[in-house]
C-alpha cells in the first residue's frame, strides 16, 4: 500500500470512533438526540450527567444536584415478616445505599429540570438551565411519560435495598426464604457498600446502552425474554425445581397486539415473570402485580382478559375461565374482597400476634378474604388437577395435593378428643394434603372459637353459620368422610369402620376403607365433567356441591329428600347418589306392614343423618336430637338419641324418645355417646 493510501486508511480508522452507543438512545440529550427530549443548543452528550472536575454528590463524576425528595419506599408485609433488611429511604450522600438510584431520579422523578446541571465547560451554571425541548413547562420530564417514576416508589421494584438471600422465616414445618440466588447472574450488578450488597436502578439498567428500556440483558430472542432474564438473574421462585413447572404454555399465545409491540412476542413462556408482574407502575400493591390481585390472573400482561390467554372472561384460549365461575351464586369471595390478603398470612392465625403490628392475617373477624394465591402458588404449580379430564372423580382417589395445588401453605391440626375444637396447628410451608389448604380458613385457625362445631360467622348466601371442618373431620370422631385419613385408619371409629363395596359407586367401591378423598371431590363447579374449571371456585348449586347430583338436604323445590325417594325415583338430584348406592343400605330398605312403618318412607334423611355430612361424634354420620343447628336441620329434625353401628343392624341398635320413631323406644344401651 502506498504511503498516501496508508495515511488515508489510518485517517478513516481514527475518525470512526468506537461504538456510538448512547448517541442512538433517549439518553442522548444533546442536539443530536433521537428522543423527544433534547437540547436545542448543547452539543456535549456526557455533560448532562457527568463532569470530569468538581463533580457533585453522586457517582461517577456526577454533574447534577441530588433531588431532595422524600421517596415512598417499596414495602410489603412479606418483607417485614421475613425481617428483610429495609432501608428508611434513598441515601443522598454518594456511596450510601439508594444514592445511585436517587441520581437516576434526578431526571426521572420529575422534580428537577433535565437541563439543570452543575457545570458546563468550566462554567458553573447556577440557576441557568441548558435549554431543552420536549420537557414540561418547568423543564422537567413530562408527567405523561412512562419514564416519569415520580416520588412514590411503592409500585416500583425496590431499590436501595440490601440484596440478602439468607433471610428466612420458619413455619411449623418448612421455611420460606427471600428466594434470591446467592449471586445474581451477569450482567446484573449489585453495589458494595459498607460490606453489604445493594440493588439500585443501575443493577438492571445501563443508562448508556441501546438495548430496549436500557436493560443490561440483551441475549433474549425478544424483549419479553430480556425482561424475563433480568428477573430470574436474581429471583429463584421455583425452589430449584426445573423449569418449566407452570404457566409454561407455549400453545396459548396472547391475542393482544400491545403485548407484541411491547415485548416482541405473544408467548407467555417468553414473558415468564412479566405475565403477572411489572417492575414499574403496577396497579397491584405490593408484589409489583400488573393488576389488583385476581385481576392479574384474569388478564395477565394483556390489556383485557378478552385478548389474553389467561383466566378471565372471554379469553380466547382454553385456559380455565375462573372469572366467569366467580360470578355464580355460591363462590369463594375472590372477586368480592380486595386488599386484605397478605403474604405469609398462614402464620398469623387466631391467637398469633400479628407482625408487623396492625397488619392482617388469617381471621374471619378482621381479615376475611379468599384470593387465588391462598390456594394456588403461581410460581410452583403445574397444570394438572387430581382428576383426569372428563371425569368427576379420580380413578384412584387420594387426599394428596395435585400439581395445581403444589407449594401452597397450609395447616395440620393437632387433633383433640372426639367432637371438640382443635385449637393448635402446625403451619406448613408446603401442604402435602388438600385439606391442609382448606383448613387454613375452615378451622379455628381463621374462624376463631366454635361452639359445638359452629362458629359465629354467618354464610349469608347459604343461610347457616360456618362450621369448623377440623372439628368435623377430626379422626377421633366416630364417623367422617375420609378426607383427613382413610376410614380404616380412623382411631375414633370402631368396626365395621367402612361401608361395604356394594354400598358405593365407582371409583369409591374398590379398596373400600383405604381410600382418602379431597374436600373438592364434593365441592366444585357445576360442570367439571364438561369443561368447567375444576375446584371450589364457584357454582350455582348451594354449597358448591358437585357431581351429576347437586342437592342436599332439600330438593330443588325446597322439600326434603326422604328415605322412600331412594326407591320410588324421587331422589333425582340427591347429592349422596354421586358416590353412594343408597339402595344397598339395609337400613334404608326397611319396610314393614305395620302402620307406623308405612310412614317410614316419608321420613326425611335428616331425621337420622346430620345435615352437614362432614363428620359426627356418632357413627355413620348419624345425629342426635340434642345436636344444634346446622347439624340438626332447622334445629328440630333429628330424632334419634342413641345409635350403635353393627355389621347387621337390629332395631335395638337405634334409640329414640320421639313419637315418630317410637319403635326404637326400647334398646340396647351401648350407644355412641355425645360427644
Amino acid at each position, binding site marked *: 500500500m*502506498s504511503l*498516501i*493510501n496508508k*495515511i*488515508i486508511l489510518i*485517517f478513516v480508522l*481514527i475518525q470512526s*470512533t*468506537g*461504538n*456510538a*452507543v*448512547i*448517541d442512538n438512545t433517549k439518553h442522548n440529550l*444533546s442536539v*443530536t438526540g433521537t428522543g423527544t427530549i433534547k437540547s436545542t443548543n448543547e*452539543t*456535549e*452528550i*456526557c*455533560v448532562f450527567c*457527568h463532569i*470530569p*472536575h*468538581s*463533580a*457533585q454528590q453522586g457517582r461517577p*463524576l456526577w454533574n447534577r444536584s441530588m433531588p431532595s425528595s422524600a421517596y415512598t419506599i417499596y414495602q410489603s408485609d412479606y418483607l417485614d415478616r421475613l425481617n428483610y433488611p429495609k432501608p428508611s429511604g434513598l441515601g443522598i450522600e454518594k456511596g450510601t445505599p439508594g444514592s445511585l438510584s436517587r441520581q437516576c431520579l434526578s431526571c426521572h422523578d420529575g422534580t428537577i429540570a433535565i437541563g439543570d446541571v452543575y*457545570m458546563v*465547560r*468550566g*462554567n*458553573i451554571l447556577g440557576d441557568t438551565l441548558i435549554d431543552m425541548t420536549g420537557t414540561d413547562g418547568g423543564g422537567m420530564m413530562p408527567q405523561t411519560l412512562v419514564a416519569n417514576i415520580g416520588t412514590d416508589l411503592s409500585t416500583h421494584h425496590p431499590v436501595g435495598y440490601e440484596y440478602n438471600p439468607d433471610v428466612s422465616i420458619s413455619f411449623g414445618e418448612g421455611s420460606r426464604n427471600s428466594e434470591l440466588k446467592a449471586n445474581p447472574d451477569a450482567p446484573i450488578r449489585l453495589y458494595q457498600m459498607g460490606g453489604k450488597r445493594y440493588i439500585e436502578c443501575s443493577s438492571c439498567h445501563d443508562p*448508556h446502552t441501546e438495548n430496549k428500556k436500557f436493560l443490561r440483558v440483551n441475549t433474549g430472542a425478544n424483549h419479553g425474554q430480556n425482561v424475563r432474564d433480568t428477573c430470574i438473574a436474581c429471583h429463584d421462585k421455583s425452589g430449584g425445581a426445573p423449569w418449566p413447572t407452570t404457566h409454561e404454555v407455549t400453545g396459548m399465545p396472547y391475542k393482544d397486539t400491545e403485548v407484541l409491540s411491547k415485548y416482541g412476542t405473544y408467548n407467555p413462556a417468553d414473558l415468564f415473570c412479566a405475565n403477572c408482574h411489572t417492575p414499574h407502575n403496577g396497579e397491584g400493591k405490593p408484589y409489583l402485580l400488573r393488576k389488583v390481585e385476581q385481576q392479574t390472573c384474569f388478564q395477565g400482561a394483556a390489556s383485557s382478559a378478552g385478548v389474553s390467554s389467561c383466566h378471565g372472561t372471554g379469553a380466547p384460549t382454553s385456559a380455565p375461565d375462573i372469572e366467569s365461575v366467580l360470578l355464580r351464586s355460591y363462590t369463594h369471595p375472590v372477586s368480592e374482597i380486595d386488599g386484605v390478603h397478605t403474604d405469609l398470612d398462614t402464620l398469623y392465625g387466631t391467637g398469633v400476634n400479628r407482625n408487623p403490628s396492625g397488619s392482617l392475617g388469617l381471621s374471619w373477624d378482621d381479615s376475611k378474604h379468599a384470593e387465588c394465591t391462598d390456594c394456588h402458588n403461581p410460581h410452583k404449580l403445574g397444570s394438572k388437577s387430581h382428576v383426569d379430564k372428563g371425569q368427576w372423580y379420580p380413578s384412584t382417589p387420594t387426599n394428596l395435593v395435585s400439581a395445581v395445588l403444589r407449594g401452597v401453605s397450609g395447616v395440620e391440626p393437632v387433633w383433640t378428643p372426639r367432637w371438640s375444637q382443635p385449637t393448635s396447628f402446625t403451619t406448613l410451608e408446603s401442604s402435602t394434603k388438600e385439606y391442609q389448604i382448606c383448613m387454613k380458613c375452615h378451622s379455628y385457625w381463621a374462624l376463631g372459637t366454635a361452639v359445638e362445631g359452629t362458629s359465629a360467622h354467618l354464610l349469608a348466601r347459604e343461610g347457616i353459620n360456618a362450621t369448623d371442618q377440623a372439628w368435623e373431620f377430626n379422626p377421633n370422631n366416630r364417623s367422617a368422610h375420609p378426607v383427613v385419613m382413610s376410614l380404616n385408619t380412623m382411631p375414633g371409629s370402631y368396626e365395621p369402620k367402612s361401608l361395604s363395596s356394594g354400598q358405593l359407586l365407582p371409583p369409591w367401591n374398590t379398596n373400600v376403607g383405604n381410600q382418602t378423598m379431597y374436600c373438592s371431590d364434593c365441592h366444585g363447579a357445576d360442570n367439571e365433567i364438561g369443561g368447567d374449571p375444576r375446584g371450589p371456585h364457584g357454582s350455582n348449586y348451594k354449597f358448591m356441591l358437585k357431581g351429576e347430583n347437586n342437592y342436599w338436604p332439600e330438593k330443588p323445590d325446597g322439600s326434603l329428600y326422604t328415605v322412600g325417594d331412594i326407591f320410588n325415583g324421587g331422589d333425582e338430584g340427591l347429592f349422596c347418589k354421586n358416590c353412594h348406592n343408597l339402595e344397598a343400605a339395609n337400613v334404608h330398605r326397611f319396610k314393614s306392614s305395620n302402620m307406623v312403618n308405612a310412614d317410614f318412607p316419608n321420613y326425611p334423611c335428616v331425621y337420622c343423618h346430620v345435615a352437614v355430612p362432614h363428620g359426627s361424634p356418632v357413627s355413620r354420620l348419624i345425629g342426635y336430637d340434642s345436636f344444634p343447628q346446622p347439624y340438626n336441620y332447622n334445629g328440630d329434625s333429628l330424632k334419634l338419641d342413641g345409635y350403635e353401628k353393627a355389621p347387621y343392624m337390629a332395631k335395638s341398635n337405634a334409640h329414640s324418645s320421639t313419637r315418630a320413631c317410637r319403635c326404637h323406644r326400647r334398646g340396647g344401651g351401648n350407644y355412641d355417646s355425645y360427644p
Partner: protein
Amino acid sequence: MNKTGIFAFILLFPMIAATDSIVGSKHDLSATNYYGVGSDASNRICIFCHTPHSANADLIDGDGGKAPIWNRRLSDVSAFVLYDETPGSPSSVSLACLSCHDGVNAQGRISAVDAGATHRIINASGSGLAGPGGGEDPNCAACHPFSRPGGGGLYPDTTWQIGADLTDDHPISINYAASFAHRPGEFLASPINGLKLFNGKVECASCHDVHDNANGLFLRTSNTGSGVCKSCHIK
C-alpha cells in the same frame, strides 16, 4: 504532489492544522498576557513551568515517569486523596500540573502547595540558581487579578482549582490496560483522537494539551458530542 497526495493532505488538514500556540492562552503567564506587576516584567513564558537546568528532582517516579524539566515545587504530596478515596500521590506528570492547579494551601484550603512553594520558581532567569526559599516571583498579576494594576488581592476561587481532593475529578495515574481488562466492552483498546497515556497511565495530560487551546479548555480534541470522553470510553 499528485492528486492523491493533495487529496490526503486536504483530508488530513483538520488533524494537523488544529494547533494553537501557548502564546496568548491562559497558560501564557507572561507580563505581556497578564499586565505585569512584580519583579519580572519580561515576556518569558516557558519559565513559569520549565527550566533547562536544575529542574525539580522530586518529580521523578519509581517507574521512570517524570515531569518535564519542572521549574515549580510542591510542598506536601501526602495531601492528595485519589479518585478511589485512598490517600496517595499522583504520578509526576500530573503532579506537575497540580503544582499550580492544586491551588494553594492557604485560606482554609488543603493543597500540596503552600504559599511559599507556589510563589517561587526553582531556577530564576539568568545564570545561577535562585536557591531554596529564594528566587524570583514572576508576574503576580497572572494569579492575583486584583493586582492589575494596583496591588494585592487574594487568590480567587476558580473552577480550575482542582484541590488536593481528587475524588471529584476524573481518575488519574491509573493503569489504562487494567481498566480495559476489568470492564470488557467499556473502553477502546487504546485512546484515540490524540489522547495519550503516560507509562500506560491516564494523567492530566492524557486529555489536556497544556500548550494548545485550539479546542478550548486545553483539550486535545474537540468535545462536541463529548468526543473527548469517547476517545477512551465506549458508552
